[in-house]
């Protein structure tokens, strides 16, 4: 294919990605070092209240925003360097907490708390999703053929469903005296409030994510199991390998590229954890990095959005995902292309 034809085919898609992915990245980078604020001016304001005989007048200095001719606030954008980052990370305070061993205090700073949750969330769900997906794939593969279609159908439901609503539907089982809370109370014989404490909410969020992501792992591994070479399994049986040994020495190595693939996708997706926070309304207990950015972007009561802070937290989020993915990506890279070059 000539370059010109190739450009015609790929052009529109590339243009969209440049315009709507690369350009915003650059603008986020720029915004994070600049602060846009309404221009304020101090004015002497005299306020008078009716009093007996004479009015009582107070003169005070007030800071009010400057308005232009049309009544809009005048804003200025100033270059502030790393100030916004500093405000977000609070390095002095964080360092002081770390040296004092006060981890709880450190996590009270929004960013560090969000980072803690996002990372633990990602790394706890990863092995659970891979394990459950693998277990399901092996188990479904041993079912009679006529059942498999229906099982796959049911399994796909949690994966396909709107994430916010999936999280909500699990929340509704537990909310107040919902049936599962009632069942737990009856079983443990004590009063339980699932949404009063951070760790129970966090547990439900982990559960939701495994529930939502395991079907994807399952479908991929199940497809991988169909392509397994029966000759190697047969020779393993002749050599006297037990089922566990077959699984360990033949099935898992065969699925290894798929396991790496699913892990990569899961790392990307779990790091983006966001919908769970909305669904379980956990923002007063735990937040994630994406939620941090989201919250800055939602207008506050005065209608202002903290774009600079959102940009800074977005940059930090992005640096995090780069760190997270660089090791597995390099490793896959070497595996596939190391032999050639």
């Amino acid at each position, binding site marked *: 294919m000539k370059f010109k034809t190739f450009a015609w085919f790929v052009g529109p898609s590339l243009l969209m990605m440049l315009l709507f992915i690369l350009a915003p990245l650059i603008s986020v980078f720029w915004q994070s070092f600049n602060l846009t604020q309404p221009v304020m001016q101090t004015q002497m304001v005299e306020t008078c209240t009716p009093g007996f005989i004479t009015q009582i007048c107070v003169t005070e200095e007030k800071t009010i925003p400057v308005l232009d001719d049309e009544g809009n606030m005048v804003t200025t954008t100033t270059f502030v360097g790393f100030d916004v980052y500093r405000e977000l990370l609070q390095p002095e305070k964080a360092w002081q907490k770390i040296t004092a061993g006060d981890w709880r205090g450190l996590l009270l700073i929004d960013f560090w708390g969000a980072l803690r949750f996002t990372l633990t969330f990602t790394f706890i769900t990863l092995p659970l999703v891979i394990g459950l997906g693998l277990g399901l794939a092996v188990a479904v593969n041993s079912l009679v053929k006529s059942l498999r279609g229906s099982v796959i159908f049911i399994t796909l439901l949690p994966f396909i469903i709107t994430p916010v609503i999936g999280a909500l539907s699990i929340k509704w089982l537990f909310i107040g*005296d919902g049936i599962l809370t009632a069942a737990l109370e009856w079983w443990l014989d004590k009063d339980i409030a699932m949404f009063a404490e951070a760790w129970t909410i966090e547990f439900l969020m982990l559960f939701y994510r495994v529930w939502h992501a395991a079907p994807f792992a399952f*479908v991929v591994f199940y*497809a991988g199991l169909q392509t397994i070479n029966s000759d190697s399994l047969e020779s393993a049986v002749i050599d006297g390998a037990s089922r566990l040994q077959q699984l360990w020495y033949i099935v898992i190595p065969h699925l290894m590229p798929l396991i790496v693939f699913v892990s990569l996708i899961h790392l990307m997706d779990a790091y983006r954890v966001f919908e769970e926070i909305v669904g379980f309304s956990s923002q007063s207990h735990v937040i994630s990095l994406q939620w941090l*950015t989201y919250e800055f972007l939602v207008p506050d009561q005065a209608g202002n959005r903290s774009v600079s802070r959102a940009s800074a937290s977005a940059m930090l989020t992005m640096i995090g995902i780069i760190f997270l993915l660089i090791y597995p990506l390099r490793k896959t890279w070497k595996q596939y292309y190391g032999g050639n070059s």
Partner: protein
Amino acid sequence: MSLPTYRQLPLSMKLFAYGFVAIWCLIAAFPILWVAVISFKLPIDSFDHNPLVVLLGPNTVAAGKGISVFDLVMFIGLVWALFRVLKSKFMIWGRHSGFAAFPLLGWASVSLGFMLLIVVTLFMVLPGISAFVNPNLGFLGQGIIGFTLEHYEAIWVEREFYRNFINSMVVTFGVVTISLTIGTLAGYGLARSGTKLAFWLLVVALVFRALPHSVLVAGYMPVFINSAEILAPIFGDAAPTFYGQPLAVIAVLVAINQPFTIWMLRSFFQNIPVELDESARVDGCNHIQAFRHVIMPVMWPGVITTGLFSFLLAYNDFLVTSLLLDMQNQTMVPAIANFFNMETTSTDQVQAVAAAVSIIAPLFVLVMVFQRQIVSGLTAVAVKG
């Protein structure tokens, strides 16, 4: 084909496998089914702590809102028949619906027609029949299970959820058509070009896929809000404000979706033999003609599968739509988030549940009809990517 004896599992392991799968199926389906059950009951039954009360809804029955055995049988029969027809005929109808050149439009209109059909039967035809038949059936015609559609009516009619539905349809339709159009071209180009450039484009796309969406939205936000000012030198007074516009959100979602789309379509195109377009080129076609006359007729399975995932992304999105659309153009998922933030009484809560079920019902049908395509799509990227 049965396995040779030495490959068959011993009974104990078989039982374990069946038990494991059964428990998983229960966990996978239960929350969804339960939410659906709740949405048909009066609030007093919906959040009862006794599961039997929630299932049977005695208070709902007592309020005169029950369905009889006859209704239940009729309902299940009808739903089953509809699914049967849908599953076997959907593809064919979509293709012969008069939009031969634009099959996507055909499929979209067939799906909308079916949704309309289901709503009409559920809310008009069925109650009509049962009002006529039930009194003459004795015991079989008595209400035994609580069942009311009032929350759905409240949500869709009084709270005007249909507006959000229309917005969702506009956004999803736009995203699916545009991202498939440009994605198919790019996927074909990438699949047929073995250059280093194509390889690097794919790697960059993979990196783009990893980006959290909030990062991108933080970049759009100020530009979209001030776009009228920014574009004023070029367009003058006609310069549009992008913020709140469905078209802007469609463009954003298309871009977010592109990396995945081109990866998936590339792997589908790689499965179409190169000899096919080579022979067309021998007959005198250029690349674009070959694509138009030889590849397009055989690419639909891959395009449909990719389209499904584009649809899911656009339909399920919360972050982008909630930040970049104004109230008037709000889609369904952010709208429901507003519902449950406002909910105060238990009636409001059940109405939020009904809205949630309304959102996931089409997805349920989607999996039923397209199960095979979804599975093949997921594996295409993984196995051949």
